[in-house]
């Protein structure tokens, strides 16, 4: 019970995000209207994704330093969860864009950049699956993960800011601060980031444990035979 407090917190925060996110008052704004609620889901999922990717990179670095497969488990599972959130983020973003910009895909720089970012991480999964030796897979996977992240950062944070984006807060569009005069949005926004990140962590932790159990069983089988 002691160690599961954060799981209870996750459920509570998620419930709060969904209920408050859908029911609380939001600023009435032209064009955005009720779709401003996408802020609680779409934007926060991206935040969660980036936090999880950072965790994955940290564990990749740890793996390269220690050669301990347990670090690699964490790195790959956090990346998996981040990819899930990335896909959800891009889908929710497309739905939102359909109603605000008029098209699922409008060629917005941020949209393009995030699609490319996802390609990068899909390539990472394919690279890992194409290697059969466990240690080699972990090592080369870690190298590519760090390398891809180094390219991911300018792609997501620098390039879209050099051109005008349709996103709120870019290219002359008013952002968060302009809408949120009474800080009502923030009351849901920040808890939602924590909630999605915790959910991702939960997913990854379960999968990491599953992976370790599988490895243990495998080792046992191999030892029995020889």
């Amino acid at each position, binding site marked *: 019970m002691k160690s599961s407090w954060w799981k209870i917190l996750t459920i509570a925060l998620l419930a709060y995000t969904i209920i408050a996110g859908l029911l609380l008052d939001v600023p009435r704004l032209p064009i955005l209207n009720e779709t401003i609620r996408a802020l609680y889901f779409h934007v926060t999922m991206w935040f969660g994704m980036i936090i999880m990717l950072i965790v994955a990179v940290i564990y990749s670095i740890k793996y*390269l330093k220690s050669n301990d497969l347990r670090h690699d488990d964490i790195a790959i599972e956090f990346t998996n969860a981040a990819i899930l959130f990335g896909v959800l983020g891009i889908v929710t973003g497309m739905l939102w864009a359909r109603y605000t910009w008029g098209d699922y895909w409008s060629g917005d720089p941020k949209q393009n950049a995030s699609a*490319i*970012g996802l*390609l*990068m991480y*899909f*390539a990472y999964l*394919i*690279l890992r699956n*194409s*290697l059969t030796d466990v*240690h*080699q897979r972990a*090592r*080369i996977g*870690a*190298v*590519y993960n*760090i*390398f*891809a992240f*180094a*390219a991911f*950062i*300018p*792609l997501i944070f*620098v*390039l879209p800011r*050099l051109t005008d984006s349709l996103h709120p807060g870019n290219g002359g569009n008013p952002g968060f601060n302009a809408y949120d005069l009474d800080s009502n949005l923030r009351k849901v926004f920040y808890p939602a980031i924590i909630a999605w990140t915790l959910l991702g962590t939960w997913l990854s932790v379960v999968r990491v444990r599953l992976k370790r159990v599988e490895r243990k069983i495998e080792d046992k089988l191999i030892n029995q035979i020889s």
Partner: protein
Amino acid sequence: MLQQIRTLILKELTLEWRQKYALNGILLYVVSAVFITYLSVGAKQGNIGVPTWNALYWIIILFSAVNAVAKSFVQEHQGRQLYYYMIASPEAIIVSKIIYNSILTLVLALLGYLVFSVILGNPVQNQGLFVLNLVLGGLGFSACLTMVSGIASKASNNATLMAILSFPVIIPILLMAIRVSKNAIDGLDWSVSVDKIITLLAINAIISATAYILFPYLWRS
């Protein structure tokens, strides 16, 4: 270290010179690719718009560079790699490969530029900026592709892996290079492109530094 790098670059150059078929193959690749695009777009001289010219040029350079660099860790068999492993530090190897591949990419880019100018017309107004941009783009391409070819050479199914691993990583460099090159073609003032060139330099620096730090781990396995 510097001594090692110089020796390794010289080694790459002599190796390339002795096996001329690889070099000639990739040069011919560029020429045929340009000719195929020329015929496919059905453009007579000067008929093609500036953005299209620019995009076609960079796509051809990208694909030729991928093909040229892909072999950098594959062409030498394992025994010889083990030999390098014993006599040279991994840092020296990656730096020498990056420098050598930059030279190769630059040669390809210049050749592509020449062929493009001859058959598709040359709309570039600011030659200095265009060539400077080629140098920077070539450096970025080669840093990224060298590292990725090192990664891909460890796995089977090399050619596909090389493409899918490198394309998303190379896109920031490609986008910046295309933008600067568009400015150069339009003959805009240098001051317009300065911040973009600095961004390109910064991305190059990030990619090269990561490659430099990570390569020893890759090399060891």
